């Protein structure tokens, strides 16, 4: 079963974990043989939103600069037997510490 770990960084600068913490976690996920894919996202100031209205007109805006206190900073997709295992990996992720959080979402399975 595939789960996406959505890594939300706290708005306050995440000084809770270091680059080494992330490298260690990344290595562990790879060595466990559960990694499907993973990316970290560039800074939120580089984000651009696109909307298309009913007439097909495109609107492009800078942002969004979420008012929420947490910002999506990256994700892992892992393949593990059940939610408990996925939650264990989420708890080991450096992004879960301090002001950050990791949201665990099952990837929908359409039986294809």
């Amino acid at each position, binding site marked *: *079963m595939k789960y996406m770990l959505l890594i939300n960084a706290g708005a306050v600068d995440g000084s809770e974990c270091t680059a080494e913490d992330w490298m260690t976690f990344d290595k562990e996920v790879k060595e466990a043989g559960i990694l499907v894919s993973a990316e970290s996202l560039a800074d939120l100031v580089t984000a651009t939103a696109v909307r298309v209205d009913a007439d097909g007109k495109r609107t492009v805006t800078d942002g969004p600069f979420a008012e929420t206190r947490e910002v999506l900073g990256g994700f892992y997709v892992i393949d593990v*037997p*059940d*939610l*408990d295992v996925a939650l264990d990996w989420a708890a080991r992720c450096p992004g879960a510490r301090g002001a950050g959080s990791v949201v*665990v979402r*099952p990837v929908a399975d359409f*039986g294809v």
Partner: protein
Amino acid sequence: MGEVTATVAAVFREEHGRLLAALVRRFGDLDLAEEVTSEAIEAALAHWPVDGVPPRPGAWLMTTARRKAVDRLRRDRTLTARLAVLRVEADRAGPVPPAPAEDLPDERLQLFFTCGHPALAAEDRGALMLRCLAGLTTPEVARAFLVPPATMAKRITRAKKKIREARIPFRTPGPDELPERLPGVLAVLYSIFTEGYSASEGPDLLRVDVAEEAIRLTRILRRLLPTEREVAGLLALMLLTHARRDARTGPDGELLLLDEQDRGRWDRPMIEEGAGLAAVALTGGPPGPYGVQAAIAALHDEAADLASTDWPQIVALYDVLLALTPSPVVAANRAAAVAMRDDPAAGLALLDELAAEPLLRTYGPYHVARADLLHRLGRHTEAAAAYRTALDLAGTEPERTHLRRRLRGVDPAA
């Protein structure tokens, strides 16, 4: 016949959880397990009164349910495919231990941990336990929580969908995880128990006694985890509280506090059982919060009256509880005990120190405790104001009746 059916139904409520848990273990799917559990029980209700009860009723139910599950799997390809995937994933998760050679193996422990899983909404966990483990029907669970049946059906469906689609596993946490997971399960059971008290609004003959269902479930958990002292502590706390049930209300249904209760109406055998379990909970290691609360309840239950209660010991236990679970509510309870050990002024001083706690501002019992102490100190105007605050916060009619009576004690014009 109707009466016989009702008796048989009560027996099946007991079997329901066991059968369901065994089927969940076998098929890994809660919906399928629930469906065939109900069907097997229906079949038993139809056959047993005519053919007689089979020698091994558990095995009969299990065989019938399994046969019905196989029938369903033949008809439903999608379900078969889903279960095949579950089987493969289960193999990846580790070997399933062989079932013990009983009539019906007891797999309920894993179901306790699934129903009480922290990934489920807190309000759904208790409902799911009453539905799956206590064997209540959805309308019965709805009445237990005083919500419309349709609302409860939606909540149970939502919780089961999350179990299925997020794949919350049916497994008992290992010894290393247990300290983290067990308190959550105990909290669900205790919330079911307190629901049975706080939500009671007069006699409702259709309403299952929720507090007793919570006690029944906790007894099952105690048998499944005999060495976990906090399970013993929780069961003790429930029994020592429930032993006072008949004395808690006066002739007009109004609430009576400890000092007004007729202690002759307390359930002595239940107190004895509870006190014995409290001793188990406090022996052999550092105490847990339920064990300490049970010990406090035992001291109240074993005292002949308020004056001869062992207040120094109760204050000492509140100190332990405060260290284990720091909370303004515990601090307020401790202050009330200090008032009894020393004098009302000492207790009031401690309560007033807590006045700024946001949690206590809307916590009725805090204002009642303050009002009582002000009353005993002869400060009637302030006492009346505190009773009025408590009256505004009271949720049920028995509570209101009780508070209005106390208010009249300090303000006859009220």
